[in-house]
């Protein structure tokens, strides 16, 4: 990916973040749940993207959905990546020993269950609140990160600087935190973005199925609403949800590619990063 394309992606992502911050600060999208408009109202100065079945403002709902998506993506992406990185580094560092065996068994168990099904089951069991939905995704999405970091750690632990640290008696925890994890930074950035994408899509699917967060609105809810509308030629809800969803997923995916390509370039140029 070229630098200008990456800058464009960052700009678009920045716009999404600005929209979300505006919603969190109460600047816009606050009346997404008021049913004051006409049924399936068209585009107007009051309702920029029209209204849904019960007269809610589709534009306000789409803005609030940006906040829901980023809230989910950032929280799940950040925490799942951190959890996966730590677990993967521990497993890789103590390869073949009990921490590795336990973590591999746990990852195998989680991998054996389809992701959305597992997330849905956890979300349903925990009560379909935002925290429950996020927790359900974190509990499942740390696994691919951990697998990658484990493989990378196995490679890094044979590096001379790691072996030197071991010889001079640096504790394994410090070696992991100071010498191994910083060298997986590009990997974690790319993986973190991909986890965000997975979390966004999972949140949409769970909300579509009615087991997403019940306290707010989401693109999944809007798409679910639109299933009753497209048959009669009403696409406002569907487009107002699917286009921003597509944009955000595309941008995050492109940035993940960008980090991966940078890492590949760095690898070709100078080998693994040194701490």
């Amino acid at each position, binding site marked *: 990916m070229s630098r200008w394309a990456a800058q464009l992606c960052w700009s678009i992502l920045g716009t999404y973040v600005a929209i979300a911050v505006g919603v969190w600060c109460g600047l816009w999208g606050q009346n997404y*749940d*008021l*049913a*004051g408009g006409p*049924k399936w109202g068209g585009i107007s100065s009051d309702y920029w993207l029209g209204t*849904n*079945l*019960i*007269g*809610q403002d589709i534009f306000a709902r789409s803005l609030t959905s940006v906040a829901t998506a980023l809230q989910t993506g950032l929280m799940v992406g950040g925490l799942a990546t951190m959890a996966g990185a730590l677990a993967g580094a521990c497993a890789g560092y103590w390869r073949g020993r009990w921490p590795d065996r336990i973590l591999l068994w746990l990852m195998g168990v989680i991998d054996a269950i389809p992701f959305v099904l597992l997330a849905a089951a956890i979300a*349903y069991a925990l009560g*379909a609140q935002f925290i429950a939905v996020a927790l359900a995704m974190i509990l499942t999405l740390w696994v691919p990160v951990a697998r990658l970091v484990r493989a990378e750690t196995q490679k890094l632990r044979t590096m001379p600087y790691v072996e030197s640290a071991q010889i001079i008696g640096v504790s394994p925890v410090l070696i992991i935190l100071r010498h191994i994890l910083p060298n997986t930074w590009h990997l974690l950035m790319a993986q973190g973005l991909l986890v965000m994408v997975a979390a966004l899509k999972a949140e949409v699917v769970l909300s579509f*199925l*009615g*087991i997403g967060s*019940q*306290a707010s609105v989401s693109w999944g*809810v809007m798409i*679910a*609403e639109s*299933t*009753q*509308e497209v*048959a*009669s030629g009403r696409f406002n809800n569907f487009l107002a949800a699917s286009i921003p969803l597509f944009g955000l997923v595309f941008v995050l995916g492109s940035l993940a590619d960008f980090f991966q390509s940078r890492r590949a370039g760095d690898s070709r140029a100078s080998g693994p990063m040194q701490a």
Partner: protein
Amino acid sequence: MLEKTNRDGQLLRRVLLATLGMTVLLGCEDRAPEQTPQLKVYRHAMDQATVDLDPAAAATIYSTFVVNNVYDTLFMYKYLARPYALKPNLAATLPEVSADGLSYTIRLRRGVKFIDSPAFDNGQGREVTAADVVYSMMRHFDPATRSQGAWLWQGRIQGLDQWAAAGADYSKSVSGLELVDSHQLRIHLTRPYPQLPYTLANAFSAVVPKEAVDHFGREFSRNPVGSGPFELVSFDTSKAVLRANEGFRSVPVDLAEEGFDPAVHGELGIEAIAGRSPPFVDELEFHFVPESSARWAAFRRGEVDFTLAPNEVLDLTLAQTSPPQMAEELQTDYRMRVATEPAVLFNIFNMDSEGFGQHTDPLQNERQHALRCAIIAGFDWQQHNERFYFDLGEIFPGVIPPDVAEFDPNLSTDSVIRDVDYAKRLLAEHGWTAENLPLLTFGVPGSITQRNIFEQFRSFMLDIGYPRDKVVLQQFATFGDLNRAWKRSELPIINKGWGLDYPDAENILQLFYGPNRTPGSNDGNYQNDQYDLWYEKASVMQPGPERTELYRSMNRLLIDDCAAITGLSRTQVLMWNRRAIAYPDRAMVGGFYLRFVDVVED
């Protein structure tokens, strides 16, 4: 490689020539044209599959529709009369009721036979007798039957519950089911039960032969042996095919008796069936198509003759909603009927819940009464009807719907007209503020429509001053989970619909009878001694002006007590192909109409 291709080509040419030759020879054969008679077939689309054809399991409308057409019930509903009215079916006349209301004497038609079946000794259907009726009722109480319909007569018929408790031995008689002779029985009740004749028009009461139940065992649910107008040909998860029962009794249609009204039915061509004996079609097909868009597409392609118009196409289907009128481009091919469901949609307050219910302290009780009344005043039935039911639903005060005879057309409609100012004033006068209003949890099953219903409800509550964070949604994975929460009295408001099992307001009024509190049918745990007194008095009375007045008094009491946000009867847009002469009905009490359907070819 080239040689092989040439050989393949030669072989192909030979096969083609041989095929062509055979075709020519067959084409030249002097064959008489086949004389296949043109069958009259009516194809009825349903939104769910029938899974069990045993009358003891006919708990859903999908089973009811098939069961009512392959079996006979003692009574049935008149084809066209509304409100629904009973008429004899397998019975020769309506029942004779003793003066004390405790005994019902029922005479059966003579000469009615079950269809031929290997279940019978010689494979030929035998005559239906009163003993079959008695057996069919007794088997509901036999644990081996796993009946879903025993509640109809539980504790009502002398000796029947005791017979079940003693082991359900069919060689022993039940004192309350007296066989007067081979074609006459007398039912003795433990207490007056004026709704008994309705229960004998329910598909649960369909008459089955013991030989068939014994012969087919578990497979009886897929091998119906009845005396109804049709018999089953095939049955799977996508379709049930029935053909006319050739031995069905001759009962010429008396249109006046069936409730024919030229103003209502005159345009449908129904006069054509007058004096003829049903069934009028050779085959009746039920197509089970759960996906609404697929069902609509099948209807538009002419693959089925009847469907419910799905909500998502209603605005394309209807040119206008008041009065409902079909879009012009559809009128050449289809007919339409907008039918009110004999059902009530309401939100019942849980009188046991903190903050909303009845309270022992009179002052607090008055505050909570005011809160309920304010919520009722804040609810906008007109908007609810417009948004979710295309303005086709019928809004009415109280719980007695317009489709039953006891409906009071003169009842004030104040309780269904939104008045936000009044609601706010009530809250303020009784000391309710955003800080002290109780949490209002709204439970729904997990579907987007239900979520929309909640969001609209929350919007109404925001308008009267309820804080956003105090009107919360609780979604349940299934309706069963939600129902369990209601039964455990966990939710302050019970938003439900109640479809009538029989066209008598008692079926709805019992939902508020104190002794029926949860886990009984009184989900709202409503308790009012005066109401209970009136209910007990009315429940043993035969239909009449005095009983109607009691029903209406109970209805008014519920409104005064602000016991529920009520009510609306949903409507369904029934559409059928013009080739079918019919007056369709989708209600639980319907299904009988299919024997009266005729088909005219273009």
